[in-house]
């Protein structure tokens, strides 16, 4: 594996620790019986301490050593977010192995690909459902020697020489002859050693495993703590997939730096309920989440009585004015106090943002209007930018200095520059990842010889150092007329409508632009129902003339904001309800351009 040569010189330490695992061991010893994780058991929140964290991970780590897991060897974890995920993650990292996550929505074939690509010999799976994926495709992944299952439910009678349960694995660890081996191994881990393997969702070609080092992550912690405020008694909610670098950084690494409590959401479906229960102090989400919250509130507004609607509109107007005013007048301050007391405060409590000091959005572009809207209701939403290859965050806005529409200033220590020839954004600094697992040629394409990371994004850097991302290089549409168009801006404008959950602008080498739209099922159903528009299933909903007209209006409204060549001339609605298992969607429910173009080619051809 090739390491990036630049920026590897100086030592980076957080609190005197140069590796994540050393920091982790120190924190577990320091906090002991303090609450570290909370998770629901049969519907009731249970607390687990830092001591549980360390002891469990130690047993798992010792058992992995006993199974012959070597330093630098990948270990895969296929599970929804839960504390065992973290135990296995830190256990593997502590003995110098490289933990990597697999999305629970991945198919058996995708799992086999990841197993073979990583060469993992140990695979952790959550339950019978995930185990079935290994059973289905185990012929294609002969390298997997041990499968460890977290949950026994439904597997009481199953046995296979390669399959064991987590409690059995922990017994092996507890019975280890030399328990100090764990601490020895932990101290042998070097800052340049891989901390984790993150498979990128791969919109082009098969997924690639990005190797992030301890140094990368320690840097993220030092830089993050300089820019963002964390407190020891903060509560966080962990709900995005831990296989993704953002959630891993926020829910695994950051709490090591600042000792906050991580609460695990029960399931992706219950996120909004869990959010209300936990009411986290800071929260990292993807644009889809924020769009969903916004449209939920707008639907609630439309269902409220006339008094409620007027109160909401008034409070939102005051909130908006207050958010915009640099020096609010005394009258506005008083009005805002009242609006906050009567409406906005309740709204935040209902949504679960009563305690939120800072909420962040990343992983995809978010529309500035949405940030302003959240600001108006008193939820400080800031946007950041980063990718797997920048170990999480590269730039971020702060609540105090929020430049809406930009993705903020680079973390201290991170340098940005634009490629003079192509305009591509290059990132330098200790945040640049080590390279792709077993893919030196891909690494060479991504990291320049002098250590800059090619992000594949095009952006602008303002005079104040704030970065604006305008789109992806490979998404640039060159119309038949020769105009260059970045579709991201148009798409994010479209997605601001509560009726559109995602959109893909099409027009490469075509005469004009068109668009494929995925409607938001819940909100469009509500719209149809309120107006007595008949529909039976999802497909008939997308075909309803009124729904077409509704989306047509949104498209027309969006067109008003763009120049002549950027007008969307026609659109089609995707008439199947896509789920995270579909290849067209990323695990964060975004449409993948390439797959959409392939799968819905017929719809696209209709428009030309």
């Amino acid at each position, binding site marked *: 594996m090739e390491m990036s040569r630049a920026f590897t010189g100086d030592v980076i330490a957080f609190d005197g620790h140069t590796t994540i695992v050393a920091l982790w061991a120190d924190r577990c010893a320091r906090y002991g019986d303090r609450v570290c994780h909370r998770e629901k058991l049969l519907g009731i929140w249970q607390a687990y301490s830092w001591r549980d964290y360390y002891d469990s991970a130690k047993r798992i780590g010792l058992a992995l050593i006993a199974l012959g897991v070597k330093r630098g060897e990948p270990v895969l974890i296929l599970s929804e977010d839960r504390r065992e995920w973290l135990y296995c993650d830190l256990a593997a990292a502590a003995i110098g192995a490289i933990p990597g996550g697999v999305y629970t929505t991945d198919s058996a074939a995708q799992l086999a690909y990841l197993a073979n690509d990583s060469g993992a010999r140990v695979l952790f799976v959550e339950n019978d459902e995930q185990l079935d994926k290994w*059973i289905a495709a185990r012929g294609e992944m002969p390298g997997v020697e041990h499968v460890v299952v977290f949950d026994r439910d439904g597997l009481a009678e199953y046995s296979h020489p390669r399959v064991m349960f987590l409690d059995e694995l922990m017994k092996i660890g507890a019975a280890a002859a030399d328990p100090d081996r764990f601490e020895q191994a932990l101290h042998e881990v070097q800052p340049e050693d891989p901390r984790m393997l993150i498979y990128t969702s791969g919109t082009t070609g098969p997924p690639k495993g990005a190797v992030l080092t301890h140094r990368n992550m320690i840097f993220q912690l030092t830089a993050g703590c300089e820019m963002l405020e964390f407190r020891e008694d903060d509560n966080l909610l962990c709900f995005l997939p831990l296989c993704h670098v953002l959630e891993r950084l926020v829910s695994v690494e950051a709490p090591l730096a600042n000792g906050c409590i991580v609460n695990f959401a029960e399931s992706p479906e219950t996120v909004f309920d869990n959010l209300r229960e936990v009411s986290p102090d800071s929260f990292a989400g993807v644009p889809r989440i924020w769009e969903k919250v916004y449209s939920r509130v707008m639907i609630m507004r439309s269902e409220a009585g006339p008094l409620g609607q007027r109160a909401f509109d008034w409070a939102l107007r005051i909130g908006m004015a207050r958010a915009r005013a640099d020096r609010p007048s005394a009258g506005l301050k008083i009005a805002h106090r009242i609006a906050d007391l009567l409406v906005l405060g309740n709204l935040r409590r209902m949504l679960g943002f009563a305690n939120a000091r800072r909420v962040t959005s990343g992983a995809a572009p978010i529309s500035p209007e949405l940030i302003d809207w959240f600001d108006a209701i008193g939820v400080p939403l800031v946007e950041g930018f980063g990718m797997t290859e920048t170990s999480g965050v590269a730039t971020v806005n702060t609540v105090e200095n929020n430049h809406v529409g930009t993705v903020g200033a680079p973390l201290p220590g991170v340098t940005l520059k634009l490629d003079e020839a192509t305009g591509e954004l290059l990132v330098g600094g200790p945040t640049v990842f080590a390279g792709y697992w077993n893919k030196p040629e891909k690494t060479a394409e991504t990291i320049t010889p002098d250590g800059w990371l090619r992000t594949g994004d095009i952006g602008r850097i303002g005079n104040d150092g704030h970065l604006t991302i305008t789109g992806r290089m490979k998404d640039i549409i060159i119309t038949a007329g020769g105009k260059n168009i970045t579709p991201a801006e148009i798409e994010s404008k479209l997605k601001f409508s509560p009726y559109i959950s995602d959109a893909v602008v099409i027009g490469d080498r075509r005469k004009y632009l068109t668009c494929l739209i995925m409607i938001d099922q819940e909100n469009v159903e509500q719209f149809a*129902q309120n107006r*007595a*528009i*008949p*529909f*039976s*299933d999802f497909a*008939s909903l997308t075909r309803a003339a009124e729904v077409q007209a509704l989306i047509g209006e949104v498209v027309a409204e969006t067109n008003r904001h763009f120049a002549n060549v950027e007008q969307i001339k026609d659109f089609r609605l995707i008439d199947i309800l896509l789920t995270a298992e579909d290849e067209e969607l990323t695990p964060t429910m975004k449409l993948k351009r390439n797959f959409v173009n392939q799968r819905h080619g017929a719809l696209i051809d209709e428009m030309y």
Partner: protein
Amino acid sequence: MTVLSVRNLETFYGAIMALRGVSIDVDEGEIVTILGANGAGKTTLMKTIAGLMDPEKGAITYKGETIARLAPDRIVAKGISLVPEGREVFPYLTIEENLKLGAFTRHGGQAQDLELVYGYFPILKERRKQAAGFLSGGQQQMLAIGRGLMARPTLMMLDEPSLGLSPLLTQEIFAIIARLNAEQGVTMLLVEQNARIALDTAHTGYVLEMGRIVMSGPSERLKASDDIQEFYLGRTEATERGQKRWKRRKTWR
């Protein structure tokens, strides 16, 4: 031709919304089935069409005429009869009296209709002087269907005709339903838990879940759908593990 069209129907039990905007079409001469788990809203839909419950919102048109919120007897007189879930025969009346009650809303032609019913269900003729309470479950179901027929309906709604019947009797009842449809031209709206026999008998189908239609189409297409096969037809993929506790996520395609 569409005889019955239901549009955006919403029906409540107090504060509970049982139907959340249901739209279906029933074409003349068709057997249409509605599948769904317990509590999906199937019976509520039937009762709302029959006028036993009033919808909060939405329209029901029968042969171009609005029938939502009409009294049940007016709806029967228009040609829609309901064979209720659990048969609901009058146990102390004789079979013949039960059948005659079915023709309560109209005058004349009863003798001829009785013969028609007896033609389809000879056992009822044999026992016509006995109290209906003495009939077996299957015979009571036949009686309930016969009673429905006595109203000379053009649309017959059958709410779970297989309830509590043996597999053999279920087949017999469904064979008669198919014959009535073919020979008498009675359009059928059929609610059924036994998805296999319902899809085998019906021409088109709807799947109702949580008060919403999630899938619709010709029975052949429904039968071929993975979701229907797994959740309604009880297909179990032969896994090596032999058992499968988890369910795939429904996509309704």
